[in-house]
Structures are given as C-alpha cells and as structure tokens.
C-alpha cells in the first residue's frame, strides 16, 4: 500500500505525530548527527546517517537496571521498569532499522531482556531511503538495500516534491490515515527510487561466511590485519549491531544503582579474569570481533551481525578497514 505527501504537509504531519508519542528526527547537534526529540528543529534538508547508531535509543550506553537502598535492618530493592511511552523515530536508514531487528534474538529468548524488547515494542519505525552511499559503507554487500527496507513500520522515499510512503505494518498504516497523505500507486513508488552510484561488489558474503572457519586458525593473518588497531572502542560503540555490555554498580553509602553500559571486545579487560585472560592479545580480540559478527552470530541466530553501515570504517582512528579484511577472506 502506497501513499504520498508533499514537503509542507510532511512537516505538518511530523508535528501532528507528536500527539502520538515522542517523535525523534535526525538532528545535527554539536557537529554530529543524532536522533533528537522533535522540538523546534526543522526536518533536515540533507543528511547521510547519524553518527551514533539508533541502537542507542533502544540499548543505551547507560541503562539503569535496578536500585537498592539500605534501611535499618533490611534492604529495599527496586527494578527500573522500562518506560512504556510510545515513540516514533522518523528517518531511519535501512541499515540501522535492520540492526534493530538483528539484535532482537539476542535480547529475546529464554531470558527475555525487557529493556530492549519493550523499547522495540513501543517504538514505531519510519525509515527513509538513502540518497547517497555513505563513505566506508558496504551495505549492498551485506544485502541491505539502501532503497527499501522491510524492517520498519513505514518506509519513505524522497521525491523532489515530498515523499512516497510504503506501508509495511498495521500500526504504520494507522499513522497515515490522518488526512496528510494522498493515495499513491506502485508506479509512484518505483519512480521515487533513486539510482545509487554503482560500484563493483567488494566481496561475496556467502564466500566470506564459508571461509571464516578456515581463516580462524590463521594466526598470522589476524596478527597482520590487526597490527594497526588501537584497542579503542569506536568500532564497537558506533556499530549498530554490537551489543556487548558490562554491568556496574554506582553507590552512595546508603543506596545505589546497578547500570548496564557498553563494553567492547577490543578492550583487553573485557575477558580478563583474576589469573588468566583468554584474549590477551590484540589479534585475538580483533579476530573475535570479525568472527563474532560474520561467523558465530550466524551460527547462533542465522543472520550476519553486520549491516554494512560503514561507521567502523569511516570513524576508525587509524583507518583499519573491515572491508579490506573481508575482501582478503574472500
């Protein structure tokens, strides 16, 4: 089902969405793009993708899990109940919306993490087709289509006049039935597709997947490709699908809060135990990151934990390019 809307009406629609819940749109703050609560800012005329991936709104770097308080003779403990307020995020790129779905099986399952799942449940995702290929990105190699996405409730394609919307879910449909949109057809949708600049595929994902097991034992290969690595957490913290975390307490003498915060497999302390660290060497940690995304995650969840957004490539302080490593494995 397709609808269309012009620029002016779109802005009115965004404001009207605020009646439905909190609306987040891409906003440039402090020189970097983030999803910010819609207040007075304008819909951006142009943006590539946010610096901080959208996972941050679902799996924040600082999530309070529970609090406690010592009372005379006993102790009170409170669970932080995840918020139930409805949210709408407008302008998600296909890579980021895919990442939200990829993370779902990690947090679901026998031990369901309500913090993530409730955030996903309370958020309506309104995606937006890309107009340009981001630097460092390899989304098409990762089978993410920059022009279409089924991981949203509504997916938009920009046209010179406004947007064409494709309705994907029922709750998405509910949002369009508000008088702002006009009906459109398949042909409008097709016409709104933008030609993305072509480039030869760097690698074939299937071959990479097949080769990773045999590459795992090649110590020298991993030593060589990880030589530049700084052991910083940029690639994991900016990655839309990295989800490793740490649990830490903050306290005063009488009360405290237990938090979950990001942790990174690039840090030597990540796996360090009292006497032994199974991933003490840099190459092991780098191998873990690549293998986890492209091999282990696939074995556990039948999907690759990478959407090719290119943040880790573009923001790596030493230009350690994941694409080169995948190409080499290919």
């Amino acid at each position: 089902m397709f609808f269309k809307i012009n620029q002016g009406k779109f802005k009115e629609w965004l404001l009207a969405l605020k009646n439905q819940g909190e609306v987040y749109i891409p906003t440039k703050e402090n020189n970097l793009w983030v999803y910010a609560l819609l207040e007075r800012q304008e819909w951006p005329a142009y943006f590539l993708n946010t610096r901080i991936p959208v996972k941050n709104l679902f799996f924040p770097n600082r999530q309070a899990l529970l609090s406690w308080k010592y009372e005379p003779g006993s102790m009170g403990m409170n669970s932080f109940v995840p918020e139930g307020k409805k949210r709408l995020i407008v302008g998600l790129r296909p890579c980021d919306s895919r990442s939200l779905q990829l993370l779902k099986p990690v947090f679901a399952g026998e031990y369901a993490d309500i913090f993530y799942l409730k955030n996903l449940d309370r958020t309506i995702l309104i995606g937006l087709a890309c107009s340009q290929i981001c630097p460092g990105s390899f989304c098409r190699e990762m089978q993410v289509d920059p022009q279409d996405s089924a991981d949203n409730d509504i997916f938009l394609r920009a046209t010179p006049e406004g947007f064409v919307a494709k309705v994907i879910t029922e709750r998405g449909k509910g949002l369009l039935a508000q008088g702002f949109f006009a009906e459109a057809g398949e042909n409008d949708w097709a016409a709104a597709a933008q030609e993305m600049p072509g480039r030869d595929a760097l690698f074939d994902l299937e071959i990479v997947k097949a080769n990773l097991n045999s590459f795992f034992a090649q110590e020298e290969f991993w030593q060589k490709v990880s030589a530049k690595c700084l052991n910083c957490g940029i690639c994991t913290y900016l990655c839309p699908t990295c989800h490793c975390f740490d649990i830490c307490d903050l306290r005063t003498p009488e009360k405290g809060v237990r938090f979950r915060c990001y942790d990174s497999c690039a840090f030597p302390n990540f796996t360090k135990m009292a006497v032994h660290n199974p991933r003490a060497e840099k190459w092991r940690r780098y191998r873990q990151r690549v293998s986890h995304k492209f091999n282990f995650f696939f074995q556990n969840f039948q999907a690759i934990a990478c959407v090719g957004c290119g943040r880790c490539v573009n923001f790596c302080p030493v230009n350690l390019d994941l694409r080169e490593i995948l190409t080499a494995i290919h």
Partner: protein
Amino acid sequence: MEEKNIYQPHLMEIIKIIVETGDTKTFHIQFLDEKLRENFHYLAGQFGEYSVFGEGEATFCISSSPTRRGHLEFSVKKVGRVTQALHQLNEGDLIGFRGPYGNFFPLEKFKGKNLLFIGGGIGLAPLRSLINNVVDTRADYRDITILYGARTPQDLCFKYDLEAWSKDPSLQLVTTVDVGDKDWKGKVGLVPIILEELQPSPQNAVAITCGPPIMIRYTLRALDKLGFAPDQVWTTLEMKMKCGLGKCGRCNIGPLYVCQDGPVFSLDEIQKFISDEF
C-alpha cells in the same frame, strides 16, 4: 509482554561463613523469600551470579549438593573486587543471587559407572556439589575415587567434607599436597603424577576434573595416557561472565557461550571447539 527484569537478583542472607583457607571462604546463604527456599531447584554443575551491592556481580558455581536442601553454598577465593567485598561480609548480611544458570553434569550418563573425581585447590567446589550428590544417591554408581590436591595442607578446602568422605567406606579418597609438613599423612606430589601412580582403570569409568588451568592441562594428558577416551572425561570451564544469560558477549568460545552452553563440557566437546580462547 512479561515484565520480568532478568537482571534483578533475589536477596539472600548469609547464614554461615566457613573459613576454608587463608584466602578462601565458604558462604551458606538462604533466600529471604520463604517460597523461593522451597521452590528453588538446581543441578550439580550450575552456577549463579552473586552480587555485593555497590561492588558488582561475580560468577561462582553452587558448591552445595542439590540433594541437601535448605540453603545454598558457594566458595570464594579472594582475588578481585567482588570477592574481596564478599570476604568482608559477616553472617546476617544480605547479598544478591541470580540463577541457576548454565548446564550441569549429566548424571544420567554417569549411572552404573565408576567415577573418578580429580580436583585441585578451589576447583573442588563444583566437584563437591556433584560428589555429595552422588554420595546421597550412592546406589546408582559403582566405585567412586576422589583425588584432591592443594599446594600445602593449609590450602586444602572443605576439610569437613574430606573428613566425611575419608570415613565413608564406599569412597576412596586420596589427598595430596605439593609441599607437606610434619603432620601431613597424605601423599606428596602434583595431582597428575599421583593420578598416574593410582592407575585407575578407564573401564566403564568417567573422570571429572576441575582445578587451575595448569593442573587441568597435565591431568588431561595423564588421563589420556591411562586410556581414558575424550568422551569419558568431563570438566567445567571458567570464563569471565557478567550477565550469565548469553547476552553480554564475553564468555564465548567460538559460537558457544560458556554461561549457557557450559560450563560443563566433555573433553570430546572441548576438542571440537573452533577456538582455544579459554
């Protein structure tokens, strides 16, 4: 959607603290919630996440036997932040507990077999849960041999258990230390060497081992020499864990998460691991 916070621990009271060695203590803990005391079930080999509020959580196996109900026991060697905080607690203090997590020793498979337990130092803790479980259901198993070693006689943990086992005519207990003293009557020597001296038969036997990594490595070699096949040898692995739920991403060995797929593995399984990162 079910509104259960999987990270929220149950409150438990420390009802007894036993000083095992200079740096190891055993804690007996009991759920504050009386219903949980009744309903809480686990199996030998499983572990829990214990929290000292304000210091954090740490992972230890449950060292008491599931057959002995009423309270849980766990043993802690003072090595880091949480363990140090635990050592400073007193009887009557509250701690948090989440669990039980992980897999367990496949007792069904062990039935009707000769069991050989090989433990070193604090590594006796997970074995102890299993040994006491087996002792309480003694009729299901054939010969039981326990080989336990520590650095010095002072470093032997669970001396009360060792005493009870030594008095039990249906068990064979061998204790050894690296360095003895004038009162020491047991053996002197490293566990793998004593193991080779004992010459246990691999016939219809299962060996279960836990201890420091270096001991495990040489014990596995000794068992191999004695003719134990990889699927006859079981161990429990130790990895750093935070969540215990297969989410936080640090305890993996290849695609396996020790907190969910382990910590109990047979040597057969371990040999098939893609990775040596444990």
